[in-house]
């Protein structure tokens, strides 16, 4: 007879560890290490499976002050705490890109970023693209070129496309493919997504 509980190290455990580390890093940057007394160090327990911190997140031009668990990813906080569910989670392990958001101008997998790392950073999600009723040219192009099939990867494709256009207003087709290569589309709608980003570049 055998007994078996969990299976090895899960991604959660791994992130828990990283999360604890990042709390330390955040403390260093505040300069507290310079204080002579050891007691002055923060007393928060670092095992802190359920440890919480307050972070300020700048999302789509709005500031959010939130108490988040250290192990909560940016994707989870955007979706579950702020209610911006347009950022989808496809794999939750940094492979598929459905959760892509733009942070300080770069496209990042939000499932692989802890919310506590995002203090003070400028986060753009798919909900932040349109100006009121007016869609961003890349969104308009995704509609016209049938970018979404099931649509689950679409937010991520759009955000990677947006990040590319922010740094390169006139990309070649090869550059678009490369820039979106971290965004899987199981519907296989790659031709459409590339065409949409190229059209959006022309429309600007």
């Amino acid at each position, binding site marked *: *007879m*055998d*007994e*078996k*509980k*969990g*299976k090895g190290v*899960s991604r*959660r455990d791994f992130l828990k560890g990283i999360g604890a580390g990042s709390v330390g890093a955040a403390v260093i940057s505040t300069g507290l290490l310079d204080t002579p007394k050891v007691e002055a160090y923060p007393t928060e327990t670092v095992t802190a*499976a359920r440890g919480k911190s307050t972070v300020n997140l700048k999302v789509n031009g709005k500031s959010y002050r939130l108490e988040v*668990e250290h192990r909560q990813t940016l994707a989870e906080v955007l979706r579950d705490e702020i209610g*911006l*569910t*347009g*950022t*989808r989670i*496809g*794999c*939750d*392990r940094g*492979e*598929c890109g*459905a959760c892509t958001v733009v942070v300080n101008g770069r496209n990042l997998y939000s499932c692989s970023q802890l919310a506590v790392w995002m203090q003070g950073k400028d986060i753009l*999600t*798919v*909900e932040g*693209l*349109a100006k009121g009723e007016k*869609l961003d040219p890349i*969104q308009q192009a*995704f*509609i*016209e070129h*049938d*970018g*979404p*099939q*099931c*649509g*689950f*990867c*679409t937010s991520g494709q*759009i955000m990677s496309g947006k990040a590319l256009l922010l740094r390169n207003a006139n990309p070649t087709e090869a550059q678009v*493919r*490369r820039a*979106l*290569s*971290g*965004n*899987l*589309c*199981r*519907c*296989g*709608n*790659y*031709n*459409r*997504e*590339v065409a949409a980003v190229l059209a959006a570049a022309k429309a600007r």
Partner: protein
Amino acid sequence: MATKEFSVVGKRTPRIDGYERVTGQAQYTGDVQLPGMLYARVLRSPYPHAKIVSIDTSKAEKLPGVKAVIHSVNTQVPWGSGGLTQKRMIFNNPVRFVGDAVAAVAATNRYIAEDALELIEVKYEKLPHVLDAAAALKPDAPKIYPKGNLSVGDGRVTAPIQDQWGNLEKGFKEADKVFEDTYISKHVNNAQMERRVSVAKWDGGKLTVWASTQGISNARADISRDLGLPLSKVRVVCKYMGAGFGNKNQAQDYDLMTAMLAKATAQPVKLEFTREDDFTGMHGRWASEQRYKVGVKKDGTITAVELNAITNMGAYRKQSGDLSGCDFYNIPNFKKTVNPTHTNTVVAANYRAPAYPQSVFGFASMLDQIAFEMGINPYDMFLKNRAVRSKGKSEFSSNALEACIVEGAKKIGWNEKWHKPGAAPGPNKHGIGMALGGYPFRLGLGAATIRLNRDGTVHVIVGVVDIGTGAKSTMAIIASEALGIPMSEIQLTSGDTDVTPYSIGESSSRTTSFTGGAVIAAAEDVRKQLFAVAAPELKAKAEDLDMRDGIVFLKSDPAQKLPLGKALRRVESEIIGRATTNPTWPEGIDGKAFAAHFCEVNVDVITGYVKVTRYVAAHDSGTIINPLTAESQVKGGVVQGIGMALTEELLIDKPTATPINPNYRDAKVPTHLEAPEIEVLFVESYDPYGPFGGKVVGEPPITPSVATVANAIFNATGKRFKELPISAEKIVQAVRV
């Protein structure tokens, strides 16, 4: 058969829900957030075959935040759609594959639920197991079921699956040459982007399930049956879903687990799969071993085909396990025997055109090889043997397969580009290949309701779920065309069993035909009522009226007209049209969509890397209701086929029977970098039995794609690869530079 002049049908129409899909507003099942909602996770078996001796949940239950733990001891709920030939429960004892569900936990957040899984102590007694399907059929193999490992039929499905016509013996006698060979395909996962998820909530005795399903009506019927609830007490909602690709037109075990956890806790529950759960706990396309015997005349004409095959269904038989790749050829004498077999591996079930791409790979490779050995150009081989009759006797309701072959070959430049296999010099070898495919075009049960408001706007109410095909848009287009009212006036309500009428569900490429037919009939009902009201105003008889672009007019004198708004002034509230339709084929007629695919590849024989450089997909799908979304379907099916041809395979570690690549990266699904530009060609075609002449689009594109790539690799290298995937390793080993 010329295509009629249509107002909307055949125009490139952006999706009616495009705005929701590009702004993030579309609400997928995982986006449903309810007050007080708990999160659930599933514990899965680490063993391929084991009896559960005991389950101790005491430590898990003590973890703060854990609200309920359910398992095979405290929760015995049948999962009717989980096994066609055996009674399957949501938790089974014994467990029969690594990934079989053992328990589920609901907790106040998903972290606690995951932590709790690790605190559940399960004592297993290991049983002997078998992973390989051929080995499982040997008499001394460990038995997964008392009757053995050949999945036996129970009336809904048969085993072995057999089909035959003509006279096989006579056919082989007529042959000048007989070829025999074996082709092998592997288990690949649907890998839809949305992880499987379910949300359940009870209001008194009524259960609402937000499911990620292709078929809300079937899901409701399954839940009702499995939980012993009247249909009126089950509501299934699915507004957007992150792709189907098969085996989602029913209730799944996790829907039932979620309902049971919600009941146990009296709180709403959201159960989420991890990506690994999705790869190991559900299903993928059935692997197969296909033995062909093919008789041909000197000129390449097929005289007889015999197929003996084994399909690996994993631990439970959820679907047929059939192989239908011979469907696209004219075979006068035919016999097939397919043995769906149980093993202690991940369950195999429907994945886009379930019985086709693996089987087309086998048979079209076989034909390509025969052409080579007989010195015939593959183009001539496929053209000569293309299907002209269904199963050797029935007429097709429409058939433009010849045009697909001819026009597709012209577009890719077959005559100029084809060369003798392996003739390309150097380590970078160019190849070109082709194959035929398609999918059954079926007729059947559909229902629709259309409300015409007093201001001339329209609600189309249908039970379809748009899994990404554009079905909602297709239904709106069909309604607009059938009513004679512009698209801008059409609203569509779908995906909620409390509101929408029955739908067969979006599987087997049936929505356009089944529900589309009902939409047309409901529109005719609306028009009849409207014309009765408008007739006196135009001093005409109702049957002499027509409507187009929202203008009611006299057929014999279109200048006698009335805008819809005016016609509706005499209507007090609204006009409601309804229809339930259920057409069947007349004796001797059968329906099919067809395709001929062509591609060019570059094979680097030093690295084994295959790049599909050009792809032409020619399709006969009848009238194309919306070319924009239909082209996307074709492009997507081809990309999935390229993955299946070159890289995808669920690998199982033999000693532990554990899948070792249950994630996107290691399963190697195609990315932007692997996808060529796919040129889509819809040949002129009109099917008199389809809505506005339309047939089937969703599943045909994947069917010939695997074989097309495989045949192009043969043309490049001169080596025949008989086992999928045709990976870089296999190419490097086979081709010595």
